[in-house]
Every structure is written in structure tokens, then in C-alpha cells.
């Protein structure tokens, strides 16, 4: 079982060495890249495996520099983190493979550096236990994302990347302010440490505002309505392999951090916020998806809607109003949903790259002819829409089972949205 810090250190070392090796030829760079990805996949898999087989039950804590928290920074890996890390790296590897196979020419060596570092950044986001370190890793992920989104170098991609940059800067400003103000009020930057201190003192108005701003910054990154204009443009303009990494992987890391921060900071309004933003995003996006004629933007709206559902589920899970059986159900629902969404959406986006038709009517024609594409498309669509026996069905079932009686209207709205989804996918 591998020390988690090695994942970060070796990936970083590989990224720096590609900087030298890029002058030695493309084959060399490619082999370094794939070796690193394989090592990372193996490392995370070994950690996740140890959790699944219950060889270790307690989360792995890595103290950087040998200093115990809160004096030093520490990372903590538990079962959910390692599972999500594995999903992210797997999708990253698949997207990189697709990007290299599809293009006429290989991407430049520098693209490999950006891909390695965006994956590294999201792993750091998941593992870290320190608020300022979280800000640094969010910035690593975002800057790599800006570069990768703009990599297509045409008008649409550049415009999408610039908008993403503006919104990303605002959201990271909110996260930074939140982290620093938490230090000023509670005297440290470590998540667990602040959590223990919040229990003692009471919540004053200023602290409530501060934590709300911090969580709002994370919500912007989670593509919630009404701040998701940037996300739709990225879905439409960027290279589909990159969209797969972003929507299938990175965003899930932000979700994990959002839920974890809300739990640690003992935020009292978590359920209300999750309900408002999650449900609104879900309904509004399904409505817009209905009206769409552009295939990629349709997938984009659908993806944002799924994210709204995920935020809703996360809110329910963390808010502490569920009984323990429903909590398990909700957790299973989230796990299956993440898996389902990441893989199906990535497949859809890879398909959109291969099919190269922008309008839906164009898709109909191509799908009728090509049997393989038709199979892949149908599987993904069935899975997302929630038809049995695919994963999406089980995820939605568990979700509905887990919601307590009081919130039955949520179930009704979710089902309405699901029906709308089925309709527009079958068009």
C-alpha cells in the first residue's frame, strides 16, 4: 500500500521532468506521461483496495514535514477520497487516450504537463485537510483548466476559457477570504482543529456571513444556477476530452470538498442552501435542455442538472436529519450516481467528438447508420435517464428511498425532471 504523498510527489516530479524531456522527442515524453499515470492509478487503487477489503479502517493521515497538525499541514485519505481519486485518474487517463488517438497530430508535450497537473490538483483538493492548502490546490486545478479549455485555439474555446477565468478568479477570491478570516477568528488553518473550536463558541453574525461566502465560492465552481453561464460555454466550446476531465472528474472533487467543509464548519443552513440551489439548478437546467438544438449544449445542461441533484444529495447526507439507514442509502446513491454520471457523460462527450455533428438532427442521421455508436449512445442515455438495470436506476432509487417524509415534494420534482430528461434524450 502506497504512501499517498508519493502520488503527489512523483506526479510533480514527472511534470517537471517533462519540462526538460520535451526537447528530447515526443516518444520519450509520452512514455514518461503514461508511466506516471499508471503508477498513480496503481497507487490509488492499492489504497482504495485496502479500504474495501478492510485491511485498514481508519483514514490514512500524512503529516507533511513531520509536524503534527495544526502546526503543519496534513493530508487524510479515507475510503470515499480514494474511490473518488481513482475515478478521477481513470477518467483522466481515458480522456488523455482519446485526445491522443483522435487528433491528426499529437498534442504538444506541454499538454501532457497540463493534464498531469490538473489531475494532481484535484487529488490535492480531495486529500488536503487544511483550508489554505485547499486554496492553493484549487488554483493549480483552475489554472491548468484554463489552459486546457483554451487549447483548441479557436474563437469559441478562447472565449469560454476567458469567461471561466473571470468566474474562477471570483470564486477563488471568496475561498481565500474565507480561509484567511477563519484563521483570524479561530487561530489556525486546519479543518479538524477549527471544527473543534467552533463547537465551543457560538455562531455570531459575522462568522455566519464569512462561512456563507466561503461555501458560495465553492458553489460557483459547482456550476450552480444562476452562476453557471461559464460552465455552459465551456461545455460548448472546449475539446470534448477536456470536458470529460472537467465535468466527470474535477467537479466531483469540488463536491466532496463542499460537503466536507460544510460538515467541519458545522454550517446550520446547509440543507436550505442545498435545497434552493440544487433543486433550482436541476429544474432550470432540465427546462433549458428541453429547448436546446445544439447537441453539446444539451449535454451540458443535462450535466449541470445532474450536478444539481448531486448537491441536493450531498446536502441531505451531511445535514444530519437522516436516520442511519437512509444515510447509507444516500451514500450509496451518491457513489453510484458519481460513477454513472462520470462514465456516461464522458462517453457521450467522446462520442460527440467522433460524430462531429453539432445539431441534434445531424445526430439522428449518423446514429442510424453506425451500429457501434448507436450502442454506446443508447447505453449512456439509458444509464443517465435511470432505466433499469443500469446504474442510474439504482442511484435514483436509493436517493428516493433515503429522503425523509417531510421532503416528499423533492421526490415529486425529481421525478418530473427525470421524465423530462427521458423525453429530450429520446428525441
Amino acid at each position: 500500500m502506497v504512501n499517498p504523498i508519493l502520488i503527489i510527489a512523483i506526479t510533480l516530479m514527472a511534470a517537471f521532468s517533462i519540462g526538460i524531456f520535451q526537447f528530447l522527442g515526443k516518444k520519450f515524453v509520452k512514455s514518461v506521461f503514461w508511466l506516471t499515470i499508471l503508477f498513480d492509478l496503481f497507487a490509488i487503487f492499492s489504497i482504495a483496495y485496502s479500504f474495501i477489503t478492510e485491511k485498514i479502517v481508519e483514514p490514512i493521515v500524512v503529516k507533511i514535514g513531520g509536524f503534527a497538525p495544526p502546526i503543519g499541514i496534513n493530508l487524510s485519505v479515507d475510503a470515499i477520497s480514494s474511490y473518488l481519486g481513482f475515478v478521477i485518474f481513470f477518467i483522466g487517463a481515458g480522456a488523455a487516450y482519446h485526445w491522443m488517438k483522435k487528433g491528426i497530430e499529437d498534442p504538444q508535450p506541454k499538454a501532457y504537463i497540463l493534464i498531469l497537473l490538473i489531475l494532481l490538483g484535484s487529488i490535492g483538493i480531495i486529500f488536503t485537510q487544511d483550508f489554505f492548502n485547499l486554496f492553493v490546490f484549487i488554483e493549480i486545478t483552475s489554472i491548468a483548466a484554463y489552459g486546457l479549455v483554451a487549447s483548441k485555439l479557436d474563437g469559441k474555446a478562447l472565449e469560454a476559457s476567458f469567461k471561466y477565468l473571470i468566474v474562477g478568479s471570483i470564486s477563488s477570491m471568496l475561498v481565500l477570504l474565507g480561509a484567511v478570516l477563519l484563521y483570524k477568528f479561530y487561530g489556525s488553518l486546519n479543518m479538524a482543529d477549527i471544527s473543534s473550536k467552533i463547537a465551543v463558541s457560538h455562531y455570531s453574525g459575522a462568522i455566519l456571513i464569512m462561512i456563507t461566502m466561503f461555501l458560495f465560492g465553492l458553489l460557483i465552481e459547482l456550476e450552480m444556477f444562476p452562476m453557471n453561464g461559464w460552465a455552459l460555454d465551456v461545455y460548448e466550446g472546449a475539446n470534448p476530452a477536456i470536458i470529460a476531465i472537467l465535468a466527470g472528474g474535477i467537479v466531483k472533487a469540488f463536491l466532496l470538498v463542499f460537503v466536507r467543509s460544510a460538515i467541519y464548519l458545522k454550517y446550520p443552513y446547509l440543507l436550505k442552501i442545498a435545497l434552493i440551489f440544487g433543486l433550482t439548478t436541476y429544474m432550470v437546467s432540465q427546462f433549458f435542455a428541453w429547448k436546446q438544438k445544439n447537441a453539446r449544449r444539451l449535454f451540458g445542461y443535462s450535466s449541470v442538472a445532474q450536478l444539481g441533484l448531486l448537491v441536493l444529495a450531498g446536502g441531505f447526507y451531511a445535514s444530519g436529519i437522516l436516520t442511519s439507514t437512509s444515510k447509507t442509502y444516500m451514500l450509496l446513491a451518491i457513489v453510484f450516481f458519481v460513477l454513472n454520471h462520470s462514465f456516461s457523460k464522458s462517453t457521450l462527450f467522446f462520442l460527440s467528438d467522433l460524430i462531429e455533428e453539432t445539431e441534434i438532427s445531424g445526430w439522428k442521421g449518423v446514429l442510424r447508420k453506425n451500429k457501434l455508436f448507436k450502442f454506446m449512445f443508447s447505453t449512456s442515455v439509458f444509464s443517465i435517464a435511470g432505466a433499469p438495470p443500469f446504474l442510474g436506476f439504482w442511484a435514483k432509487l436509493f436517493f428516493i428511498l433515503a429522503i425523509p417524509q417531510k421532503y416528499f415534494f423533492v421526490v415529486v420534482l425529481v421525478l418530473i425532471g427525470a421524465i423530462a430528461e427521458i423525453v429530450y434524450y429520446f428525441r
Partner: protein
Amino acid sequence: MVFFLSSIVLMLIGLYAALTKRNLIKIIIGLSIMDTGINLFIISLGFVKNATAPIISLKELFKSNSLLVDVSKVVDPLPQALVLTAIVIGVAVTAMALSIVIRMYSVKKSIETDDYKELKW
């Protein structure tokens, strides 16, 4: 208190410029001003009255007869360390934004957002 207020004003000015200006370069300048405002805010959080810089090179800063430094004689060093990182990150984002704008100019020969209407602003 004046320090806090002025840095907040800077942040808001930068945010306003980033959200409403139409020239791409002005948007980038707005983001830069916002970064400056935040960094000033963070540094002013660490101030301690009648204390000096956190460089321990004088014997007077130590507590009497011990090897520990007197905490009240020295300004808080942690916000300064955080700001070091934040400044560098701000520079990196600005560099990235400028490279995107250079490319946009080569594609469209314009840096006004009015000319970029392919995706809704």
C-alpha cells in the same frame, strides 16, 4: 480600521471592473486590482500594535531568561506567508489571462467583448 476599509474598497472596485467593463484588458486590470485588495486585506489582519517585523536578529525580542521569543513584540508572520503565496498565484492568473487575450486578438483582431458573440456573455 482604515486599512480594512481601503482594502475592501479596492476589492470592490476591482470586482466592478471585472464584471462590467467591455474591454478585455480592462477586465484583466480589474482582476489584478481585486488581487491587490485581497492581499492588502490579509496583511492588515496580521498587525499587532507596537510590534516589529518577524525577523529575530536582536536579543531584545526574546523573553527574559529563556529561549522563547516574546509573542507580543513581533507581528504575526502567518498572514505574511499566506500573502506571499497569494501574490504569486495572482501573477500566474494574470499571465494566463494575458496569453488568452493575445491569442484572441490574433484570431479576431479585436479586444472588445462586443465582438465576441458566439457564446452568450
